[in-house]
């Protein structure tokens, strides 16, 4: 520990910590815009956090300056306050003043810090504005670099957390901007659409493309039969959009809200999550027994799929051929459900609510039309659903609890935990064990695969299969590590779960903002609570609706219908 003085307060701080950390621990909030400790991002770029350090020549950036014994720091002298205001004025002088119509309005860190430092005027001449073309080439994310404040968080999250390294600053001085390398448009790039850049962006420079209007139009179209599915993580996130604490499970209120919005049927992606376990579990067993490609890797996370297609095309055979639960849902809604209900599948409009931005891309993939129609018609993120509900004047917090419609609304706890990293693995192992061993696991909680460690491993003796070794990775940077091991022949696993986003779907690109690991942990906890405490059925193969589906429609796992509707293929893409 070192002892220093901050604003005449004697403060102890661990060696190697920054002035900013020491100050915040001492209850002194130093504003900052660029730093983001969770992703180890402290470029010292925005200069909002400058403080005075005795004997230093100029002001120093608190977010990167290490504490030292006897150091004397002043965080709010006139010099400091004026400097922060000046920096803020510079930023605002080059920012479009369209806050009222910006997607990040009210959730913008630039607004918040401007308020914190008390900047009230722009007097510098600003004859020149950054005016860059808006990149809305993709159907997922919109990049508007005129709103960029060069915090470089997106660059770091893309390179260091996600291992994609797509974004880079380009150009010099005032004309510099952060762009996909080689000046590509997003749509022509190796972007995985994971949306983590949008999650960390402090302003409205990177936002999801809003599809709420498509959904409003569908709901208002009397000729359409609009059904909705919600990803497992939504029930643990949506409350935050309405000011509720993170980790509040709002399943029943969410159902009511969706029904009030006008959806004809409120179903659940958890249903097809259970189905995925059946198909994927049998695929794993098949590969193990027939000497198929191992390790097999999960395929639920569309950002991850695009990642491997771009960067590790040689490893594509390792991917499970199962579609993601979202897409299985869409395919069944337009076949199984339409048949069962006697509805013209052409009139069925499938909306999914996802914690994910890449799902928008996945739904639009050309191979996702095995029902004869586009499987999923519109994808909304949690944030977009929040926006729709607010527009409709629906206050989630006070709604009564609703229940799902049949037949695609029933699910097990195994389906719910899909939303957290390790959840798919845990769910799959429960079922595989039961199928192979003919009995349930002694304990259904496989805690080794839970939590936020980047790469987790587990090994399980499963009857005649012997020891089954599993690995779980979340965040594409960790995925890269695992893939490099596979490519090097050093990955002695049978089954690997990979999720694009840190924390899995609870940390998805479409999650409520601002995000943090703390929130992700609370959300995951809520999902495990649903699995352990709320749901009476905790294993996918025990879901009676799934049994009914096989009995009445699919007949058998990995059968012909499954093959046609629930499995897919992958495309090698260039970098």
């Amino acid at each position: 520990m070192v002892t220093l003085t901050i604003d005449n307060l004697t403060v102890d701080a661990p060696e190697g910590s920054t002035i900013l950390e020491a100050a915040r621990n001492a209850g002194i909030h130093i504003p900052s815009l660029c730093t983001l400790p969770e992703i180890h991002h402290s470029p010292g770029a925005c200069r909002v956090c400058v403080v005075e350090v005795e004997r230093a020549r100029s002001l120093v950036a608190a977010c990167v300056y290490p504490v030292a014994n006897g150091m004397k720091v002043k965080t709010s002298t006139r010099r400091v306050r004026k400097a922060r205001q000046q920096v803020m004025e510079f930023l605002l002088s080059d920012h479009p003043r369209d806050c009222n119509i910006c997607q990040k309005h009210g959730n913008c860190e630039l607004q918040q810090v401007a308020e914190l430092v008390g900047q009230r005027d722009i007097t510098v001449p600003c004859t020149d504005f950054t005016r860059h073309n808006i990149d809305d080439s993709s159907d997922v994310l919109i990049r508007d670099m005129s709103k960029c404040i060069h915090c470089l968080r997106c660059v770091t999250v893309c390179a260091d957390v996600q291992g994609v390294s797509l974004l880079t600053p380009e150009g010099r001085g005032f004309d510099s901007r952060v762009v996909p390398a080689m000046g590509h448009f997003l749509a022509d790039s190796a972007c995985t659409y994971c949306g983590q850049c949008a999650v960390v962006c402090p302003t409205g420079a990177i936002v999801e493309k809003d599809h709420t209007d498509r959904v409003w139009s569908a709901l208002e179209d009397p000729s359409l039969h609009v059904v909705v599915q919600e990803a497992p993580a939504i029930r643990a996130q949506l409350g935050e959009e309405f000011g509720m604490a993170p980790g509040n499970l709002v399943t029943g209120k969410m159902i009511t809200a969706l029904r009030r919005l006008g959806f004809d049927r409120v179903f659940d992606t958890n249903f097809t999550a259970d189905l995925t376990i059946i198909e994927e579990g049998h695929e794993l067993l098949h590969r193990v027994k027939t000497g198929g490609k191992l390790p097999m890797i999960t395929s639920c996370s569309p950002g991850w799929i695009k990642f491997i297609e771009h960067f590790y095309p040689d490893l594509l055979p390792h991917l499970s051929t199962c579609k993601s639960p979202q897409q299985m849902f869409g395919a069944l809604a337009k076949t199984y459900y339409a048949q069962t209900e006697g509805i013209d599948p052409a009139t069925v409009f499938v909306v999914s609510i996802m914690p994910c931005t890449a799902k928008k891309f996945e739904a639009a993939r050309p191979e996702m039309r095995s029902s004869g129609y586009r499987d999923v018609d519109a994808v909304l993120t949690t944030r977009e659903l929040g926006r729709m509900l607010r527009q409709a004047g629906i206050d989630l917090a006070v709604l009564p609890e609703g229940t799902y419609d049949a037949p695609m609304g029933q699910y097990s706890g195994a389906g719910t935990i899909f939303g957290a990293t390790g959840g798919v693995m845990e769910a799959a192992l429960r079922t595989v064990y039961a199928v192979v061993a003919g009995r349930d696991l002694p304990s259904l909680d496989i805690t080794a695969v839970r939590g936020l460690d980047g790469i987790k491993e587990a090994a399980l003796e499963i009857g005649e299969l012997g020891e089954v070794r599993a690995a779980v990775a979340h965040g594409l940077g960790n995925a890269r590590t695992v893939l490099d091991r596979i490519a090097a022949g050093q990955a002695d696993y049978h089954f690997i779960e990979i999720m694009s986003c840190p924390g899995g779907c609870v940390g998805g690109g479409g999650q409520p903002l601002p995000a943090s690991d703390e929130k992700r942990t609370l959300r995951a906890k809520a999902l495990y609570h649903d699995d352990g405490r709320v749901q009476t059925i905790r294993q996918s193969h025990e879901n009676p609706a799934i049994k009914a589906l096989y009995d009445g429609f699919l007949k058998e796992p990995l059968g012909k219908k499954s093959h046609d509707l629930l499995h897919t293929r992958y495309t090698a893409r260039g970098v």
Partner: protein
Amino acid sequence: MNERITGLETLREIKHKVLENHRKYRLRLMLCGGTGCRASGTHSFKAALAEEIAHRGLGDEILVTETGCNGFCAVGPVMLILPEDTFYLGLRPEDVPEIVEQHLIKGRRVERLLYEDPQTKQKIPCMHDIPFFSHQLTWTMKNKGYIDPEQIDEYIARDGYAAAAQALFDMTPDEIISEVKTSGLRGRGGAGFPTGLKWDFAKGARNDTKYVLCNADEGDPGAFMDRSILESDPHSVLEGMLIAAVAIGARQGFIYCRAEYPLAIERLTIAIQQAEQRGLLGKNIMDTGTDFTIEIYKGAGAFVCGEETALMRSIEGRRGMPRPRPPFPAVSGLWEKPSLLNNVETWSSVPRIIWGGGDLYAKIGTETSKGTKVFAVTGKINNIGLVEVPMGTPIGDIIFDIGGGIPGKKRFKAAQLGGPSGGCIPAEHLNLPTDYEAIAQAGAIMGSGGMIVMDEDTCMVDMARYFMEFCQDESCGKCTPCRIGTRRMLEILENICQGKGEPGDIERLETLANSIRDTALCGLGQTAPNPVFSTLRYFMDEYKAHIFDKKCPAGVCPDLFKAPCQNGCPVEMDIPAYIALIRAGRLDDAYQVLKQTNPFPSVCGRVCGHPCQDRCRRSQLDESLAIKDLKRFITDYTTPPRVAPIPVVHTEKIAVIGAGPAGLTAALEMKKRGYEVTVFEALSEAGGMLRWGIPAYRLPREILNREIQEILDTGVVLKTDIKIGEDLRFADLESQFDAVYVSTGAQKSMPLGLDGETAEGVMGAVEFLRAWNMGEPVAVGNQVAVIGGGNSAVDAARTAVRLGADSVTMIYRREQKDMPALDAEIRAAQEEGVAIECLADPVEIVTENGRVCALKLSRMRLGSFDASGRRRPVAVEGSEYVIPVDTLIPAIGQKAELESMSDKIGRDMKKTRIHVNKDFSTSHPRVWAGGDVVTGPAMVIDAIAAGQKAAASMDKTLRTARGESPWEQAPGLIEIPFEVDEEIVEQPRAKIGELAPAHRCKGFEEVELGYDRDTAMNEARRCIRCDVKIEQG
């Protein structure tokens, strides 16, 4: 000779062999192959030379060696002949036969290719006698021009790698570092951090892997020190790095060199290869078990990559962006390993420090800045090149002694040190020693050694704008203050330069500059405001002129003036217009244009100091236009526009005291504005200095009379023989007139301040000229001495010649080039037999019987610089000498007579000047003043300008009191043609005819004859019409 070197012994053997080989040749021709000389044609010369030498069979006695940069880049290609030290410059292939025949065979130097002293016009054959070299002290660059940089043995022959051997065999790391500390060497990259200390930090860092890095990313505009060192002596850098590697325990080094330096990279690559071959780099160096490998990393030319953390990121293969420190690179640098970074010059200084001892180095320089410094001197300076001097050498010595001063008689304005991160040193600080602290105190930085010299034609606001634009273009864009803040500063500067500056801009610039300096991430951003700080500190007037007067005094900012000649004219005469009208043959219109801004065009066509001509853009091609002579041509060849009386429309009455050009102009201007104006003149006729000071051979009296009459014809009332204070009390004027303009001039000569000045035969130049011009008897003796170098001194001297003096000598305490008189006047005086004695100053007037009989003079030498940027003359002790003199005319300045004036008008009796405000008003609410009484002796055109500006101010004050807006001149209705020759052919200025000296000395007939019509037309055609702005489609 490719054997592996195993220690000092083998190095000595090689040295011996090389020197022995050199001795086999009678002459060694060291031909400069630096980038500058190569560009001027080294290779074609070298080929011709080699062929001729072979052809004449001289191959065995003459050795031709291509060296690296010799430093004297301005005159390349250059060649040094050893051992005799002959220095040839400006070499062309066609010079080869003569050099071979005359010099190489017959041993006679080729005079025309030798250096010529611009002052004395003497040839200087030996390199070490040429001032550019003789004032230098080389340490870092001791090998430049003496070795072939592509031959390692030549470096070894000059004790190369001996220091490395010493470090490897005989010294501990601590001893090496201690030697560097003893030397006092500080980082030559700019910041001046003590080098030994830096090495100590790197040595102390615990890590198995450490790096030694060389920053060769020289990027300052105008800087080429590092490039030249790499080109001329690459091994010195490698050896310096090797010594450091031994000291800190590094096995890998990188040289980060910008890709724009292909020759430097080529020579470095060769040097590394040869050093590796000889066991001086690579594995097991000199068989000691030490490994050290150097790789070259080519930078893509980003300025910010000169910043150490950005440089390291760039080597790592990432975008070159600085990161905050700490951690410092000595702890965590390249690939997060301890890294020791120095720049080229620092590395290059190290071997001699180790070999010769740090104390030897520490003896050079100043207390805090030891050793030598290399400067790249560029810009408006005669000897562009690379110089090395002891730290502490005054900047003025570098610019004037080594650099040879400013071309074209222009005045030195400032030197920019430290490039875009630095600041400017103005003329008043030329004595500033070049040490880190002194330069920082003056608001600049030592920087890496770029020195850009600027003359009076440089606009300092534009310069600040340029550097701000540079920083903005080179900012990596990472931190807010540098990315956006510098752009905001740039916008303010651009506005100011475009005439869109506003009150408050200066304060805004200061605020932004302070914030950016305080908040930017790296050195680039923190120092980006420096040029603004330093120009605000020294050239605030120029900022104010741009913002408030919408004028660019230097004539650089194109939005603020039409043409540079017009901008340089105190009354902004529309010069391009009247010259175009001459060309079109419309002389009457041209005369109208003249009269719009100048009531004395005919006078000015003869005696104006024509600052317009110094600005003429044509001079960049051949010679400036003869604007003065063309003006005279108009007034010679057509009749002046008709003058009609102007009616009086105001009740206020105006008095003007003094009928010189300032007073008459003010009177006319007030008359134009409708006032009743009375001019009071103490003498019998109007004209002031034009009549009483300027001799008739320069200004015929009928010309003067005509232009005065044109003013009086408008209705201005002239009352002569009325002296204020004697014939009329100032208080009476005050009570009878609503506004009074004082333009009484400065008509008393300044005394020399020596005994005997009242003796017979001594008279001030003004008094002398006035007496003669008034027709009073003037006795001129046989031996006339005139003291001073201004126009009055020349007038007095030439008048004395005409009055029959046997000998007339002008005595001036500085050099002839410093004389303030017009060059043409000095030349004419010399033609008429006037002798000029420079660097002499009177110390005693010797009298006999109350009459001057001789003058004791002291020789002067030029000492340190004064506030005007000129060297101050200092008496040489014991150099006194006496010349016989019977007439002594001091002409060292003039003062005003202010005794009769009201003391309410801001008299400065000490300087005998009236102090006025910017608008020529005085502290008396109804009195204005202008002309020589305010400025001291100045040009006619300055007096005219003063009269115009004072009149505008008087009128504005009177009208404002009545609630009216000020008068505005109706715009001229003369359409100006635009006609230029499609191709501009070089053509010197047309000469004006003159009376022959022998003839003109006999009387006061006008000397200059004026142009004839054809000559004038041709001269007018030389105008390139730079005033016309062509719209970009």
